[in-house]
């Protein structure tokens, strides 16, 4: 049952964060949304892999997700550095030109 | 009921007390007091209980190390957070 519960949690996370990604214009919020989005995808992966008959979840899925987590943190760091630079250069924390004063 | 489980059960009220203190106490410093004292005692009892049931010395050592590390970390962070408040008045900058 764990599998089903967390598969649906994964779907919930993906949908919520996609919505947030479109609705928010603040760069930090968008980075947060992408992180939650990634977590949702990882959760689906691991939940699916937890059906494996081995003592632990599917090792291939686990290896992929570990790789994914490490890549996600490096992408996050790069995105945050970019966001900070944009804020320092333009004075805005968003990418859109016209919404701000 | 085994002594192991009894000790762990004994630890649970401390966690609850810490949380209640966190919610009910009026200011930051007393809340910190509640959280750090109660939770560390609770974790101590859980660790002690599990150590009794540990099948190897390595496991017992790991459990003890966990408790010590959490103790050191939570005490220090509590002290540091308290200082940011004492130094800056009630305002610490940044968020709301």
């Amino acid at each position, binding site marked *: 049952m764990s599998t089903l519960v967390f598969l649906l949690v994964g779907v919930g996370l993906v949908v919520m964060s996609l919505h947030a990604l479109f609705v928010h214009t603040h760069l930090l919020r968008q980075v947060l949304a992408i992180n939650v989005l990634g977590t949702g995808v990882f959760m689906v992966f691991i939940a699916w892999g937890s059906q494996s008959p081995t003592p632990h979840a599917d090792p291939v899925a686990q290896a992929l997700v570990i790789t994914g987590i490490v890549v996600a943190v490096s992408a996050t760091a790069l995105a945050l550095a970019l966001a900070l630079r944009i804020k320092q250069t333009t004075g805005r924390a968003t990418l859109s030109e016209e919404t701000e004063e | 009921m085994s002594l192991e*489980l009894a000790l*762990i*059960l004994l*630890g*649970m009220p401390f*966690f*609850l007390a*810490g*949380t*209640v203190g*966190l*919610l009910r106490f009026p200011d*930051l410093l007393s*809340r*910190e007091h509640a*959280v750090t004292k109660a*939770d*560390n005692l*609770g*974790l101590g009892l*859980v*660790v002690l209980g*599990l150590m009794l*049931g540990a099948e190897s010395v390595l*496991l017992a050592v*790991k*459990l003890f*190390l*966990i*408790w010590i*590390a*959490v103790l*050191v*970390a*939570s005490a*220090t*962070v*509590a002290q*540091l*957070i308290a*200082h*940011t*408040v004492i*130094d*800056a008045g*009630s*305002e*610490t*900058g*940044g*968020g*709301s």
Partner: protein
Amino acid sequence: MTDWYLGLAGFLLLNLGLGLVRVLRGPTPADRMVAAQLFGTTGVAAILLLGQGMQERALVDLALLLSVLAAVTGVAFTRLYRRVQ
């Protein structure tokens, strides 16, 4: 036995949920951070009990990892959010 440990882990999870109320209420960032620190202690205890309930020895290693890193975000907060005079 298994159910006992899982139940107690659930109890600690509920405790964490209650603690989140303080994170939400604040009012200052320091208040939120103190409440978040609760996750260090209670979370470690919950993982230990979960490990016992699921007969999974590796969870002790996870608790070990968490306990060593428990201070990182708290220290980062106090170092970054103090006014640089």
